[in-house]
């Protein structure tokens, strides 16, 4: 089963603010932008609560003073959202999963087939609604993804 956990800042996200200002200057019609680290785990059985608990317990992934962490119900990007991942380096050394892999494997969560980490950007329009796919695509093409070494996943 695919389970997704996202970790986002509760303090002001300067990276998202900078990206928003740049997109607006480039003419992309977006009014708000959020960013989260998203961990997608392919695991035998459910395992969602266990995965959430392990990531919550990893100090390099989650700091309760500045992050919120949540288990998602779905396994794909939300409306107005894009997931950015690195294309694999020849030796697989480009994985963004980083600290999550030893954190999850080291805690003995059984049955993990694959663990990936994405940067999840979510765009909103002036009414606070998720941005249209065309707007997300424009943001991806102008700033959020360099296709030379990254891939973008949009619903």
């Amino acid at each position, binding site marked *: 089963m695919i389970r997704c956990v996202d970790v986002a800042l509760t303090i002001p996200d300067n990276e998202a603010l900078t990206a928003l200002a740049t997109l607006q200057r480039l003419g992309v019609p977006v009014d708000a932008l959020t960013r989260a680290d998203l961990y997608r785990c392919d695991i035998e059985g459910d395992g969602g609560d266990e995965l959430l608990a392990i990531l919550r317990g990893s100090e390099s992934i989650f700091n309760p003073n500045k992050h919120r962490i949540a288990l998602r119900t779905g396994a794909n990007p939300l409306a107005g959202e894009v997931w950015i991942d690195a*294309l694999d380096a020849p030796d697989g*050394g480009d994985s963004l999963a980083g600290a999550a892999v030893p954190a999850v494997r080291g805690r003995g969560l059984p049955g993990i087939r694959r663990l990936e980490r994405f940067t999840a950007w979510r765009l909103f329009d002036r009414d606070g609604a998720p941005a249209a796919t065309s707007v997300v695509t424009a943001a991806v093409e102008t700033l959020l993804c360099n296709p030379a*070494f*990254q891939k973008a996943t949009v619903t």
Partner: protein
Amino acid sequence: MSARAGILIFPGTNSEEETLRAARAVGLAAELVGWNAPLDDVRAFDAYVLPGGFAYEDRVRAGAIAAHDRLMGAVREGAAAGKPVLGICNGAQILLESGLAPQLDDAARSQAGFARNAPGGRFRSTHVHVKLVLPPARSAITATLPDGLVLPAWASHAEGRLAASAAVLGRLQDEGRVAFVYCEADGRSLPQSVPNGSALGAAALINGRGNVLAIMPHPERDAWTFMHHDVARDRARGDARTMLAASGGIALFAGFAAAAERYARA
């Protein structure tokens, strides 16, 4: 009159002082230029250097935000007019993100990038050598350099692995866009010479016109004898004049200065 070179600073740039020193050492009238400088002042320079660092804290991606900074509009205009542009490390990342290098088909979009190092995706700070693999005349910046020149430099980055589609990599090779490759001190290019898994062993790319050079390792950090990591420094011990002489990586700045002078006189 010396050509004027603008050493461009974005929030997070951190190698501007040593870059300025190297530019002045080869005779350029070089000045530091902040990201909020009036664009008309920026346009007045004959050449530009984008130093290393972490422009805009590498937000989104290394070089991605700076590539769209207003300052880059002036750099883009200057490059189109034939002004020499040199990007070092983060400056090289900015040039690739902006599309100013390698600029296949004169496209104004990113066609390649410097991705996380391989193996492991980790930051590396290590001494390297790079070799000029183009005919020097192919680029205004290398035109006065010896064929096959080997330069010492410091690689100091987490994202220095040239990455692009197979089609783009093929064209970079076929169209002579790889200016320098990593090598040993004697010029041999071996797999272990490459500190970051870079495709084609590439350390530097140029644009089609040859006036924009994006180089990942820092020549300005090995530009005086006392900085060297070889017998040249050992031989200079006890000889202050030699120890403090510009050498090694300064050659790239000399080539850049010659290009800037040619542009200024034209």
